[in-house]
């Protein structure tokens, strides 16, 4: 494993972000002036932490003894036989503490905030996984934590709301706009603008103003580094294809980043196709969006011709977002990563299939990646290797899924 607990070597062909936080035409820092000094402070503090062996050691210790890393790479034998094509492996981020990859970033950032002397943490959450992960890290390290969550998401992810409260965090309902992730981020940004002196904002994905996309990518890239080592141990060769779902894009960049240099490896990001590709019915930013700036970064955005942000829909709260991490927009523009989408129905079908075939109930987010695997794996050669990122477990989604899968029954 790499000597560093959270840094990945930058692939030389893609030396991003640059000093301005740009990934080609995407990224940057688009925030009210009040926050600019805080972003500069964060940039400097992060670089110092990254170079500090003691900080690295602390993070490594928590990753091993608290999070449970490395997470397993599992050969999904029955799923593979069912599809009749390539061999499919799952990277089991669902087995990380708190049940999703989100802990990798949350723990790293809360440790960083503590090192910076911040007393209070705020976070936004969609599906609740990032909120739970941040609440967990704050409980572990003894920091105060407020989590902003859209009231519609609170409704569909009640279990995670209770978890956050049990962990000692306050969950602040957001009732503005579409009452989902985007609005929770707006509210977290408003809080940060107000309390920037003593508060660190733990942004949960590879989006937002620089340096957040970089910090989150670094903390998540452990997923791909472990996967490389594990597939070499189990198969003696690298995979042909990597598949991951893309909301903001943190689990996918986490899996992909260490393989960017291996140009023969195909990488596919799967967005939420929702009910259809009509405006407001999906969250497929690359299929239905255009370049724009939302919440601090230039990227692809679902917007109307006047630059107003459109509503989104997905059965999965964690993918239900109008923009996507700027580095994804960059890797798409240079053709290094492909992006596609899976609809609500396809995700629900994969959710059931994997539950029955492998005894793993996936998060509805991860089910989008699995749905795409179900489309392409049957056409692949039997000796091809595919890794799907099982970014989270589906316990939180059982009630939501039941509403669709078992209509008429009450829960």
């Amino acid at each position, binding site marked *: 494993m790499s000597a560093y607990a959270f840094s990945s070597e930058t692939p030389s062909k893609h030396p991003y972000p640059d000093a301005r936080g740009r990934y080609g035409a995407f990224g940057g820092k*688009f925030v*009210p*002036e009040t926050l600019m000094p805080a972003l500069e402070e964060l940039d400097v503090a992060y670089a110092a932490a990254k170079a500090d062996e003691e900080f690295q050691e602390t993070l490594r210790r928590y990753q091993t003894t608290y999070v449970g890393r490395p997470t397993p790479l599992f050969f999904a034998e029955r799923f593979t036989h069912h599809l009749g094509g390539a061999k499919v492996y799952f990277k089991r981020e669902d087995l990380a503490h708190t049940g999703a990859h989100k802990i990798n970033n949350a723990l790293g950032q809360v440790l960083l905030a503590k090192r910076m002397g911040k007393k209070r943490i705020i976070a936004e959450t969609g599906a609740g996984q990032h909120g739970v992960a941040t609440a967990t890290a704050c409980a572990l390290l003894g920091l105060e934590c407020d989590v902003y969550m859209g009231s519609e998401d609170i409704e569909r992810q009640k279990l995670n709301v209770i978890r956050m409260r049990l962990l000692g965090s306050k969950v602040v309902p957001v009732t503005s706009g579409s009452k989902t992730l985007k*609005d929770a981020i707006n509210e977290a940004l*408003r809080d940060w*603008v107000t309390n*920037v002196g003593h508060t660190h904002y733990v942004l949960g994905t590879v989006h937002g103003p620089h340096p957040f996309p970089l910090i989150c990518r670094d903390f998540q890239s452990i997923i791909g580094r472990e996967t490389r080592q594990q597939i070499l141990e189990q198969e003696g060769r690298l995979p042909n294809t990597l598949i991951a779902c893309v909301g903001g894009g943190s689990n996918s960049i986490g899996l992909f980043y260490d393989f960017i240099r291996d140009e023969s490896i195909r990488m596919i990001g799967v967005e939420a196709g929702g009910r259809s590709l009509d405006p407001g019915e999906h969250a497929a930013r690359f299929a239905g969006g255009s370049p724009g700036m939302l919440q601090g970064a230039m990227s692809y955005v679902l917007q109307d011709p*006047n*630059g107003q*942000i459109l509503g989104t829909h997905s059965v999965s709260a964690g993918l239900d977002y109008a923009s996507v991490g700027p580095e994804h927009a960059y890797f798409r523009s240079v053709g290094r990563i492909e992006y596609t989408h899976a609809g609500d129905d396809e995700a629900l079908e994969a959710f059931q299939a994997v539950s029955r075939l492998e005894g793993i109930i996936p998060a509805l987010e991860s089910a989008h990646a699995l749905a795409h695997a179900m489309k392409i794996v049957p056409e692949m050669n039997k000796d091809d290797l595919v890794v799907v990122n099982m970014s989270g477990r589906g316990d939180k989604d059982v009630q939501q899924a039941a509403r669709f899968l078992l209509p008429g029954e009450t829960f």
Partner: protein
Amino acid sequence: MNRIEQRFAGLREKGERAFIPFITAGDPTLELTGQIVLELAKAGADVIELGVPFSDPVADGVVNQEAAQRALLHNVTLRDILGLVKGLRNQTEIPIVLFTYYNPVLAYGHYRLAEDAKASGVDGILCVDLPPEEAVEYCTAFQGQGLSTVFLLAPTSTEDRIALIARTSTGFVYYVSRTGVTGERETIESSVHGMVTRIQQHTKLPVAVGFGIARPDQAREVAAYADGVVVGSALVRMIGELGAAPDMPARVGAFAKTLADAIKGR
């Protein structure tokens, strides 16, 4: 000199401070926004900040968020707002600044918007989520048309950033009086006077102060040292409460006059 520069030059000669009201364009309707602008001009406003409604206003408190939502309910666009200004130019020469978020500007296109804004009689633009580092093409486009590009400074701004923003701004510099979003506050922070003085050491541009100023006594206090005073949410809240009442523009104008009088020491 554009209208903003002319107005500030005139005020400086008279030793007066500028009154800069903010309202959201299209709340409750574009037609009523036009009437409010005329009332504000009559009440003694020097520059009008016309808010461009945006779906995700991260720098705004609840009052301005709701005003933007009301305007967006009838799909007010930047193009509509330029049309409104164009119509107003038959009736008033008051300087008008667009107060906007960046994405609507991007969607319109820097150069196209600069040209159309100029042609419509807009005098300047202020983009609340666009720091100067990201604003090279934006400045070229708008300054190229003779429009002022107003940038903001905040209590957290370092000496380097004060210098950068003093260099990049034209027309005036906008000082955000406290860390936080727009909205009325009970008191003005004691640090404001010192920051305004520091900014004035970096630039000859007028320094206007906004965020949190809601009452005539607060406006008078800030006018003692700042070149301009911005009042937004207090007016926007009044507009929201009165809605389409027939005397709404006149009543907003009457309140604005109390602010103008306080700022002008009348």
